């Protein structure tokens, strides 16, 4: 029972680990594309946290079935926030990648150190 109670936090622990793994890539890697990959891992971790919060014990996806009484539904609100955030995430990621491509054309490299040396 105690163990199961602790495992109820497992999703949040995974969130913490993925978040910091993404952050590690952002602060430590010098390759700009790797940094963006790290940023999108970081972003996914936040999505996981929101979706974890929407779950209700014994619940189901919030699509109401006709003729079924006393159904429990998970919370639709975090789902809506994350749904739109995913699509916005890919658009902003593409913007970042476009800037990286232009940096590569101007400097011939996407390693942060070499770009700083070139300036």
């Amino acid at each position, binding site marked *: 029972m105690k163990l199961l109670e602790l495992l109820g*936090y*497992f*999703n*949040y*622990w995974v*969130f*913490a*680990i*993925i*978040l*910091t*793994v*993404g952050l590690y890539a952002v*602060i*430590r*890697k010098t*390759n700009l*594309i*790797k940094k963006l*990959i790290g940023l999108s*891992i970081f972003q*996914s971790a936040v*999505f996981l946290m929101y*979706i974890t919060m*929407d*779950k*209700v*014990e014994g*619940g*189901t*996806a*919030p*699509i*109401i*079935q006709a003729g079924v009484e006393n159904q429990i*539904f*998970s919370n*639709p*609100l975090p*789902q809506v926030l*994350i*749904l*739109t*955030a*995913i*699509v*916005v995430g*890919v*658009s902003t*990621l*593409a*913007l970042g*990648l*476009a800037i*990286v*491509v232009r940096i*590569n*054309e101007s400097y011939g490299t*996407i390693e942060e*150190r070499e770009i700083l040396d070139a300036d």
Partner: protein
Amino acid sequence: MIFVFALFLLTLLVITALAIVHTENLFVAVMLTSIFSLLMAANFFILDAADVALTEAAVGAGVTTVIFLSALALTGEREKPRVGGRNIALVTVGVLALLIIYATFDKPRLGDPNAPVHQHVAPWYLEKTPEYMGFPNVVTAVLSSFRGYDTLGEVFVVFAACIGVLFILGVRPPRESLEPRDESSGLRHHLIPQVVGRLLVPFIVLFGLYVQFHGEYGPGGGFQAGAIIATGVILYALLEGEAEALRAVPRSVLLGMVIGGAMLFGSVGVVCMLMGGAFLDYSVLAADPVWGQQLGILIIEAGVGMAVCGALLSIFHAFAARESLS
């Protein structure tokens, strides 16, 4: 049983994330990112978020990977290792991870029905959706009507990002000797991907249309449909070459979709105001408020689908066109 499966998936997710950061080959990292997204989608599905899982699978595993790959083709796929500073970074993120894990013990445990997040407006949405909208998918109802302002904002963010990418990549590269290379022929000379892909494309687009127009009744809606249809067209471009895909859906049509979709959404809001309601209050669109809501949601979902599909495809073509120049 599903609980054990969830633990397994979450563990895989952590391993994949570590592998992505560890590898020095960016191509491998991007492929692992695709797997990461797929695992994430499975997790979302287990956590009852069917709509989000659909979006993550189409956008994360599909479109994001293609955009990353087309950027990699322009920059090179080897990452140079960095010396020094490793321990400081490890200690920083390690301490942060422990702090966050310590903080999670104050959070309500997974699935707790008494958690504060479930007490506020969510029950009201669940209760009122059938009455106000007359259709069962509460996520679509909240997305397109109750919180239509948010969604309008998000569509404009996608629109702005698309315009930004087109501006940044639309400029000609600095080196002058660049004659456009031979048009890439895609996978035209590979028989098996060609046959299988050609079979798949129409069904992917059909499924996208189903998701678009069935979004009120099942998981789906404009965001997912836009991403799925974009994936279908990108697959066509990979099979037949980019020029062929542009002949099927020209750039001007894509731009028209982005601008038209965003305008359609906004103008529905303005029409609501002209007809005496509040901005984006669809109830006034028809004599029966429920019909008005359904009509409004149908139109704005179509706008969202057009804008998202057009934006993702414009971004893809912007990267691909750059590729054939350099």
